[in-house]
């Protein structure tokens, strides 16, 4: 701890960081994403990934899914601060370990190489619902949907098959069963 010469005190407490998925329903209006993202950057919160799109055309509601890390106190603040924003309708929050919620990310992989490598790549993706979106003699574009860490792993593993480009989304989330987010 630095020996403070200022009048601000330092805390010695070390708390555990958890990964949380925060889902926010907002009015789809100009600047709304900047408000949400600005809240995170302005207050020093993390954003690991972000997914946003309009989900209700008639009511013009967008759904923002943010993966963040923080101490329980910080995560609680994030939720409470988000709820204060005027265009925010509701906020839901889940731990990544939460079994009642499905989290998925999508990734596109471009593989360039000889045929055996292309096939190898496709085979390696087998567990993650691979879809072959584009195919030429020399290249493949494969889409997979999986968890973040699985996509992290695939991004590494596919290198040997000639992976040249990766594009991936943030996580989206949905509850299991008949329940919906409240």
């Amino acid at each position, binding site marked *: 701890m630095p020996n*403070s010469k200022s009048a601000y*005190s330092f805390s010695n407490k070390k708390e555990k960081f958890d990964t949380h998925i925060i889902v926010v329903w907002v009015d789809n209006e100009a*600047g709304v994403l900047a408000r949400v993202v600005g809240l995170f950057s302005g207050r020093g919160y993390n954003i690991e990934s972000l997914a946003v799109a309009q989900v209700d055309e008639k009511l013009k509601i967008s759904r923002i899914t943010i993966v963040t890390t923080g101490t329980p106190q910080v995560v609680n603040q994030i939720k409470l601060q988000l*709820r204060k924003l005027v265009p*925010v309708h509701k906020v839901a929050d889940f731990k990544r370990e939460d079994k009642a919620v499905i989290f998925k990310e999508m990734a596109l992989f471009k593989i360039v190489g000889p045929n055996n490598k292309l096939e190898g790549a496709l085979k390696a993706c087998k567990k993650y619902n691979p879809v072959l979106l584009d195919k030429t003699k020399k290249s493949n574009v494969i889409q997979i949907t999986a968890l973040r860490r699985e996509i992290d792993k695939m991004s590494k593993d596919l290198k040997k098959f000639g992976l040249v480009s990766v594009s991936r989304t943030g996580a989206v989330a949905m509850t299991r069963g008949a329940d919906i987010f409240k």
Partner: protein
Amino acid sequence: MSKLYSGAEIVFKCMEDQNVDHIFGYPGGAVLPIYDELQNFKSIKHVLVRHEQGAGHAAEGYARSSGKPGVILVTSGPGATNVVTALTDAYMDSIPLVCISGQVPTHLIGTDAFQECDTTGITRPCTKHNWLVKDINDLASTIHKAFEVATTGRPGPVLVDIPKDIQFQKTKYNRPKKEKKLNGKSHNHFNQNSIDELIELMSKSSKPIFYTGGGVINSGPKASELLRELVYATGFPITSTLQGLGSFPGDDNQFLGMLGMHGTYEANNAMHDCDLMINIGARFDDRITGKIDEFSPKSKKVHIDIDPSSINKNVKVDLAIVGDVKTVLSSTLKSLKQKKSKFLKSNKQKTSKWWEKIQKWRSVRSLDYIGSEETIKPQYAIERLYELTKDKDSYITTEVGQHQMWAAQHYKFNKPNRWMTSGGLGTMGYGLPAAVGVQVAHPKKLVIDIAGEASVLMTIQEMSTAVQYNLPIKIFILNNQYMGMVRQWQELLHDKNYSESYTAALPDFVKLAEAYNCVGIRAKTPEELDDKIIEMLNTDRPVIFDCMVDKVENCFPMIPSGKPHNQMILGPKDQESKKITGKGKSLV
């Protein structure tokens, strides 16, 4: 067919319907259509400031002293950027402001046009909400919503950016309809169980304390009345934050004075040792808590606040009651009367030891200072100012620094809305324009800005505004030629390296007053101080009072950096008598 109004007219129609009587502003290219219409709306008076920051602080002073939102009108680009400091200040201290800014015409937005800036982008983090109006049909509803957002829940500043072409376009005007609650964001989220729990905690406690803040003021004068009732009904001691001063009488025996970094010894020690802390409308700010890990370690903590995000932000509490202070206090009092009608009697014995302890802390007399017959001690100046004005219903604003803390320590407030100071942001230059706004709201009252010579120079141009509108504000400058608080920290924390904290070329404030066509008065000795203050009070014009004070006086008591409440440094008088100068030094 109903009449069509231009956007500029609609701005004023909305203000009429919102009962706005004063706006603070400065014209410029992108708001000229609005200024064109000003003459057609006689119920709305415009106060022309000299810098947009001044408009913002004046609106803050107006709002804080009257309970109504302050309204600002500025042009695009520099007009908007100049008001950002005041908006941020209002955001930190929860002051309701509505700022209307002009913007370049919609077809030029994004082209780096003359006096264009991304106003909504710049002000997004320092407003509760802001709007760029791109459709004339949205204008009226947006302005009405702006007033609603600014004044409901935890109050704060909002901004409506109106492009010049929208100001010219015409449409119908609809009066505001009673809006339903904002996305279900209602403000009272507590039930009777929490109130019962609070009363249970109160009746069990033997070392209780009320810790009250600006939320009591913001909840309206009724909240202060209820607070007094509750404090008298319980017999508990009460301390207040800087922003809360006035909600409870400063000269009452149950009041321990202000708490925090420059709070009293008794208030801070009571906070540290209490077994029940009832926070009403305060936010556990870092100037209040000191070292957070050692903050009031043995107490149960109750937090009453209208803003759910204030709960557990800095300090974890045992009981949270989310609601408007007025509503919560009235429920509490009602239940207290029903369930524990003899609370005061049964409690007196229980808390008698606690009060004995508090009296012991009080006997330290932590606000004492070493007087002088040659130079005016700044504390003495405030004491005299208080004694000579306490019979008047005076309004005090301050700048930021030592003088602000001395004012908070030595001027006793008995009513809410009489004390306007920049607490959260700590904006030097706040006090003079704030005094302008207070005087506009209360033309017949005595309004004094207790100032430092460094702070006041940041917005001194607003003297010209005061003179133009015959606002007889009194600028009472404690002139020590230093940025006093900076100098104090440099002395205590930075090995007396007084880097750039001395102002070598100050203006002659008496001549400066004359140049502004107001009155300058100077006091140099304690002997003449009273006469000069009386001269100031008898002057029915704006006055700059140059009070030449001790240059190196420090503001004590003080919680040094990274220390908890029970490790305060006391003033030199105490240090001398107890010979703890060495230890006091090592504490910082």
